[in-house]
């Protein structure tokens, strides 16, 4: 009898405890369900991790801000154009690290004029390493299409390496997010930052091209290659993004190659008939001024390119390139 009573007591206790445990689990589940936020926290820009592009500009010197050289040979034109601005030694000091940003947007042949000409790039590397005695020169760009093919088929990789520069292909770890102060589009956006961070000097070097979306692609548009992510969304507001890039990047020098100008079907081109010889090269500390002159090679005026006005209004440079008293020369 006593044993049966104990068993009954144990069974009741077991049932009571099971019921309590079930109630506790149900209560905990209900609370969890109520507190569950399927969207997660709204998220805020991680400002601590944002980076800022360093200022690479040099002090302006009256009459030595912009030079325009006419001649058929790119390398000779470049050498003369830089000389007119005070020589490469003004821009690059011995022992410094130089980052060159060419336009390597497409895996196309140099002859098509869609990318920076390798001969011009090689001459710039030579000037930096041999004449200015830079410690090292890096060459980088972020073509969306397979970077290895782009650097190889444009001739940029071979030209850079033969001249003594190192080519940096874009990799995930080289990108950091940035936000442009006062910018509308560049907000918490990844840029090819690591090479910029390690450089003392930044030189942009780009061809003059027709562009289906932005009308013209020159030195300012060339910084588009620093952007990561699905940057094509910026094509919807192409003038603003180009102006913001000019605000974000303050280069040491820009080189604009108008030796052969892509007059139509840009930015890819494809046919030699898209090109017209203009035999002109521009070197400038003011990228807005360089592009304002460069667009005349496309039979355009600065007013035809809204991004130039926007960049000027933001203080990135001047469209009145004549006010800079550019130096002209001809190299035969």
């Amino acid at each position, binding site marked *: 009898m006593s044993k049966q009573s104990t068993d009954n007591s144990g069974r009741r206790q077991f049932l009571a405890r099971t019921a309590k445990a079930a109630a506790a689990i149900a209560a905990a589940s209900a609370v969890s369900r109520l507190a569950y936020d399927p969207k997660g926290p709204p998220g805020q820009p991680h400002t601590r991790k944002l980076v800022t592009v360093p200022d690479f500009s040099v002090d302006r010197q009256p009459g030595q801000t912009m030079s325009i050289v006419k001649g058929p040979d790119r390398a000779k034109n470049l050498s003369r154009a830089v000389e007119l601005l005070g020589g490469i030694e003004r821009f690059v000091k011995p022992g410094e690290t130089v980052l060159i940003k060419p336009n390597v947007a497409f*895996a196309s042949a140099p002859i098509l004029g869609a990318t920076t000409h390798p001969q011009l790039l090689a001459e710039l590397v030579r000037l930096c390493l041999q004449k200015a005695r830079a410690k090292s020169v890096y060459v980088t760009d972020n073509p969306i299409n397979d970077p290895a093919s782009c650097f190889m088929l444009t001739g940029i990789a071979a030209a850079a390496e033969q001249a003594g520069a190192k080519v940096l292909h874009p990799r995930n770890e080289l990108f950091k997010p940035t936000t442009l102060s006062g910018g509308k589009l560049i907000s918490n956006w990844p840029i090819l930052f690591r090479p910029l961070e390690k450089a003392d000097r930044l030189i942009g070097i780009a061809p003059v091209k027709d562009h289906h979306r932005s009308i013209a692609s020159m030195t300012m548009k060339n910084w588009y290659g620093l952007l990561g992510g699905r940057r*094509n969304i910026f*094509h919807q507001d192409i003038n603003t993004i180009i102006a913001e890039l000019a605000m974000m990047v303050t280069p040491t020098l820009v080189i604009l190659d108008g030796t052969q100008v892509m007059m139509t*079907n840009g930015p*890819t081109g494809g046919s030699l*008939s*898209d090109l017209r010889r203009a035999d002109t090269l521009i070197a400038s500390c003011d990228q807005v001024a360089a592009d304002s002159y460069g667009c005349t090679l496309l039979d355009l005026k600065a007013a035809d390119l809204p991004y130039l006005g926007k960049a000027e209004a933001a203080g990135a440079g001047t469209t009145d390139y004549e006010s800079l008293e550019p130096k002209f020369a001809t190299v035969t």
Partner: protein
Amino acid sequence: MATGTPRRKARESVISVCLLAVLFLIGLGVFLKQSRYDKTAFAPPTAKPLSQQPQPSTTAGPNLQVFTPNGFKALSEPEFYGPDDLYEKINGKASLYLDSNFRRLSARRFASIDSPELWAELYIYDMGTARNAFAVFSLQRRPDTLDLFHFDPSFAYRTENAVYFTTGPYYVEFVGSSESPQLTNALVAAAPGIEKALPLDEPARIDELGLLEAENMLPGSIKLNLSNAFGFSGLTDTFSARYNIGGQTITAFVSRRTDSRDARTVAKSYHSFLIENGGTLRAASVGALQGNVVDFYDTIEIVFAAGPFVGGVHEADNQQAAENLAAWLMKRLSEAAERKD
């Protein structure tokens, strides 16, 4: 009330301690994980790292190997792009294709076996219809180039280094890396084979082309803007061509609408658009064009409706020449409308 022996109690205690230890370890794991919480992982999507960006597929699409020119071999794997990732291949030019209802791009590079420095890239754009293919062909057509006459119709030409043509819904570019005759001739020779190999679902008949053709039309000057012709969003599906009128080059255009009423509405809207944006009316010497001639910043614009067609002249320097061309086009469009009726 006793529920077990001391030995059993001890065993239960051990199990409880073990369970508590497991719970503690789980809690510790959660704590450590959340201490490395990255807010940006939950931020609204702004940009994907390279590894997460869509990569061009290399496994789908036509077998581009069959298009290898004689004496060439494949230099790269085939690449395929759709509307979402076309920009990865052609960047800023993608919108030109997207505006013309682009479907798919197949591309591959080939190199000469004997001279590997001679290479070319084949681009086959599937535009969905022959009309769309003609639009992107015409908008990029290079002037002063050589037609490839073996194509019918002859929407094909070559330049110093490339071949361009349409066939059915496809627009094809075969772009060489140099102006070597050896390379370009190989591309020209390969073009008919490519044309034959691409499947055609519809005849490449585009009726409006016949409406614009004339002896004084500049060869290869016909263009098709599927949208936003001359900066006016209401002017869609618009063909234009350039003519030599007494030594002057003038552009005429035509757009077929759904019916006469729609044509009149569009013509009126475009006329209003010109006036609202600074144009002024000019008296016409051709009676039928009275009220249709607009001086738009020192160039002449003429727009009219003829049956289901909107026609006109764009950016002419000389009013009389513009009116002559417009009168000819109006007559031709009226005749075409009558035949249709």
